[in-house]
């Protein structure tokens, strides 16, 4: 058991923190206090290995890929394709043909949604008039709006599986909304606003029983959990590099090759074609069919470095460490009178979302900021989730692999200061 072996080695958080230059930089807080970075669900800091990969590309290997015959071109192509192999292994995909580099999760969802609704050869797309798309009540706007656009284009309807008071998807409600008209389902692996870990494997099985393919939005899961798209049996899986210690502007769309073959191309341009005439263009094979234009080569190589970094530490160990931190933070916050956690699912990861009675989340955020504690205050791009709980906003502390108990102690002390000021 690989997981048992890696868990047996003690998790040395200080050694991990040493890998992240920003955590030790000066001038990162308003008040000059030491930084406690608890906004990891928004974006994560980057380890030196990722920074080195980015600067290494621009300093030593910079060239375009898939077209140049010179040494640099071959080297850039080799590094770019090595990142694809890394991503394949990271997700345990069957083939590199199933790994498409995109700008991030948002672009991945848009790619799938628009390819489903696109008319080709005068015929409706896979999503047509009267059809349905099923999502859940805890989705991020980026897993809602692309489907609304697709539904609007196709004349289809969006169905939403409700969530309960703990912030968990009601599986029966999800199953009930899967029907003969459902053409695709899209669900978050982990909710960014609540931290709920969805039982995606069960949801996928329910959908497949009705012949419905499933896209999993893995933006929040990729930094926290070991991933295996074949074990999940998902049809599409989307992730963002910057939320998993990699660069911004890069992400991965995994798709089963059978689906990627079936879908029409999304964007047209260079690299995605095999031959072009004014009369007829034939498309390149997978995965290049979906990678039009010169991609973000440096960030792709940086994402590969981030994935190798996570695998080097051990994703099972990271998950175990973070679960313990989350448990500790939950106990700390629950002990604060007048504080209510929003999102209390039985299975959670990474996120402590809360409201403090009588104090607006923006004021909480500003006071914590003055103490060097970086959190997010707002609706977290999940307004329907806020509506479900009858609130406009929450304060969200989200943890990463480099956070410590001491930082959560500082969070709790900062919240005591908040109550003192506004109580």
């Amino acid at each position: 058991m690989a997981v048992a072996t890696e868990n047996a080695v003690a998790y040395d958080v200080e050694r991990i923190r040493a890998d992240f230059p920003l955590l030790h930089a000066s001038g990162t807080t308003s008040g000059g206090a030491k930084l406690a970075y608890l906004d990891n669900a928004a974006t994560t800091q980057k380890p030196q290995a990722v920074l080195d990969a980015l600067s290494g590309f621009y300093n030593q290997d910079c060239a375009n890929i898939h077209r140049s015959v010179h040494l640099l071109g071959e080297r850039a192509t080799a590094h770019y394709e090595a990142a694809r192999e890394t991503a394949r292994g990271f997700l345990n995909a069957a083939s590199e043909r199933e790994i498409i580099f995109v700008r991030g999760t948002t672009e991945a969802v848009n790619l799938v949604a628009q390819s489903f609704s696109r008319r080709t050869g005068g015929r409706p797309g896979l999503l047509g008039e009267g059809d349905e798309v099923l999502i859940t009540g805890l989705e991020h706007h980026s897993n809602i709006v692309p489907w609304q656009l697709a539904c609007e284009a196709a004349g289809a309807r969006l169905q939403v599986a409700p969530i309960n008071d703990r912030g968990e998807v009601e599986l029966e409600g999800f199953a009930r909304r899967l029907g003969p008209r459902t053409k695709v389902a899209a669900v978050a692996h982990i909710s960014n606003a609540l931290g709920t870990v969805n039982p995606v494997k069960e949801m996928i099985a329910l959908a497949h029983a009705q012949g419905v393919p499933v896209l999993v939005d893995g933006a929040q899961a990729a930094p926290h959990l070991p991933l295996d798209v074949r074990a999940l049996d998902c049809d599409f899986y989307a992730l963002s590099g910057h939320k998993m210690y990699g660069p911004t502007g890069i992400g991965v769309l995994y798709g089963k090759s059978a689906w990627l073959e079936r879908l029409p191309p999304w964007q047209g341009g260079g690299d995605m074609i095999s031959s072009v005439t004014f009369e007829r263009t034939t498309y390149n094979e997978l995965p290049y069919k979906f990678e039009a234009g010169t991609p973000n080569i440096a960030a792709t190589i940086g994402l590969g470095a981030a994935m190798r970094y996570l695998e080097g530490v051990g994703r099972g160990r990271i998950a175990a460490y973070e679960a313990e931190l989350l448990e500790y933070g939950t106990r700390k916050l629950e002990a604060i009178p007048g504080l209510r956690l929003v999102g209390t699912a039985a299975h959670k990861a990474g996120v402590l979302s809360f409201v403090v009675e009588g104090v607006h989340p923006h004021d909480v955020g500003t006071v914590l900021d003055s103490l060097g504690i970086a959190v997010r205050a707002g609706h977290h791009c999940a307004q329907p989730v806020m509506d479900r709980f009858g609130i406009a906003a929450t304060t969200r502390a989200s943890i990463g692999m480099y956070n410590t108990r001491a930082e959560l102690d500082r969070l709790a002390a900062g919240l005591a200061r908040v109550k003192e000021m506004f109580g």
Partner: protein
Amino acid sequence: MSQLGDLYQELILDHSKRPRNFGPMPEANRAAEGFNRLCGDRLMLYLKMEGEVVREARFQGSGCAISTASASLLTEAVKGKTRAEAEALFQRFHQLVTGKGEAPADAPPLGKLAVFSGVSEYPARVKCASLAWHTLHSALEAKTVAEPVSTE
């Protein structure tokens, strides 16, 4: 911590905890709704105008300490002012919280509104402070209850 004290001055905390002129105004003849997209805060601002003069101002809604205190102090500040005076005060206030530009020599005095001077150090909070004033601007222009205005 000194910066934080500059932002949350005692007068601001006082008005946020006990907002003045808070509640509906059935006799209002101007009203507008303000909406901050960033945080989802909404407020309703009601005015009773007599000709060009603001006779009464009240507000409703929930928001952060900065936006609530700003709305509360606004309702006090604009009472008795003409439309033009109120708009000039908005311009002066906007300069204060954004920290941009010098006030002209003939600018209206800020009075109590000067407590918002600390906001300019917190760019993310400028919208909180100015929401009520954008809403005022909209209400002054409105014939009736207007569509929500945002701080964009």
